């Protein structure tokens, strides 16, 4: 069980460091809110238009916030060269990926939970039972974003122009997940769960599993020197 011990050690270390400084969570959450505001002024939102655009606006702000947070997850390891120390540790190096991915997932979920009340406020949604399935969609969608994003963050931290290239890498690749997230969120907000919702949830689950499996196999190649 050493693999899981190391994964959890890395997760715990990231969470502890973040708890002390809050240098990722605050900017991510605030940025997400700002994006919601920008979209509000860019489109005439309210009423019927909200139903069409609301979920898309929400997930766009999450995706952009995640781009911010993901680039940090390997940036500080590179800055103080502690990635070398992690690579030198015995055992499967993909434990680093999994630990980082779980950390990114938790941060992204935290941002989403912070944004949700503001979203319901700005867009006049009445709170109700839809919150529970909505959290399920958030969880699956965030798992997809972190699974792919952590791998790309690891790759881009190794490249020139790293902050510039992470969006280029990530945005085309997460489109399948994004499509299903937006659809599923729309369905949940319309209180339509059942037949039409499951295919999307299945899609998200498959996407997350595929990317986690791929990343576990490819991570070592992405970070080696």
């Amino acid at each position: 069980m050493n693999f899981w011990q190391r994964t959890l050690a890395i997760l715990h270390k990231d969470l502890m460091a973040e708890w002390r400084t809050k240098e990722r969570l605050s900017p991510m959450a605030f940025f997400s809110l700002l994006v919601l505001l920008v979209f509000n002024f860019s489109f005439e939102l309210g009423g019927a238009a909200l139903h069409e655009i609301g979920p898309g606006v929400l997930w766009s702000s999450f995706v952009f916030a995640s781009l911010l947070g993901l680039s940090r997850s390997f940036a500080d390891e590179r800055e103080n060269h502690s990635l070398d120390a992690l690579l030198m540790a015995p055992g499967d190096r993909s434990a680093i990926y999994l630990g980082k991915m779980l950390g990114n997932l938790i941060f992204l979920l935290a941002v989403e939970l912070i944004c949700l009340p503001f979203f319901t406020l700005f867009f006049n949604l009445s709170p109700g039972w839809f919150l529970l399935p909505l959290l399920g969609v958030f969880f699956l969608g965030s798992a997809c974003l972190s699974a792919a994003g952590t791998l790309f963050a690891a790759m881009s931290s190794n490249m020139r122009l790293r902050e510039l290239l992470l969006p280029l890498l990530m945005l085309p690749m997460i489109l399948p997940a994004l499509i299903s997230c937006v659809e599923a969120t729309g369905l949940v907000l319309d209180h339509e769960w059942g037949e039409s919702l499951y295919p999307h949830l299945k899609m998200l689950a498959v996407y997350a599993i595929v990317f986690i499996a791929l990343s576990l196999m490819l991570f070592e190649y992405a970070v080696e020197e």
Partner: protein
Amino acid sequence: MKNLSNASKVLSTLVFVSMLAALGFVFLYAPMEKEMGDTQRIFYFHVPAAISAFICFFLVFLGSVQYLRTRETRWDRLALCSAELGVMFGLIVLITGPLWAKPIWGVYWRWEPRLTSMLITFTIYVAYLMIRTHGTRSGQAPRLAAVLGIVAFANVPLVYYSVDLWAAEQQLHPPRNVGLAPEMRYTLWICYAAYALLLVQLLLRRLDLARIEEAVERLRQRRDELADY
């Protein structure tokens, strides 16, 4: 080298002849389609281009996997050249598509599943090429590109599945097994053959070019090293 250029000349001639034959079949032999008229003939260029693009994307995947396993440059070279050709064929699909769409559906573009999926896949491989050019110092470029090449290809079925889910009702392309008249089917096969020969010729020439570029780079390095002493 002599043998190579002879083989290349033979292949070029074959490509030329097969393309001429394909054009002949498309415009002279294939019957006019009853609903769409002459515009339908774009089909014979559009579909083989799509198939060629996917063959190229598969070659990117193959080259990437083999590169990570063996670390031999030739596999990385295959991945790069196939990606370029795949993007080119994808562009042909994305241009012939709207050209076909305007007379038939009335608009140049509709967000319907096949077109949208092709657009997303095309974007993924354009990103691949951009990362290779701008993102990496050449020591690590092959390795990072190989990881990307594998992930990109794995993503393609996901793209198609999710876009299908999203816009199933908007499906405007005819279903895959639509019955084709025998003459149409023969014409299509001729076009497949022509495109396949084109793909092979372009790939081989591009691989040659890549090999020459690498040789020049090696010579340049050697010259710089000697200059140091």
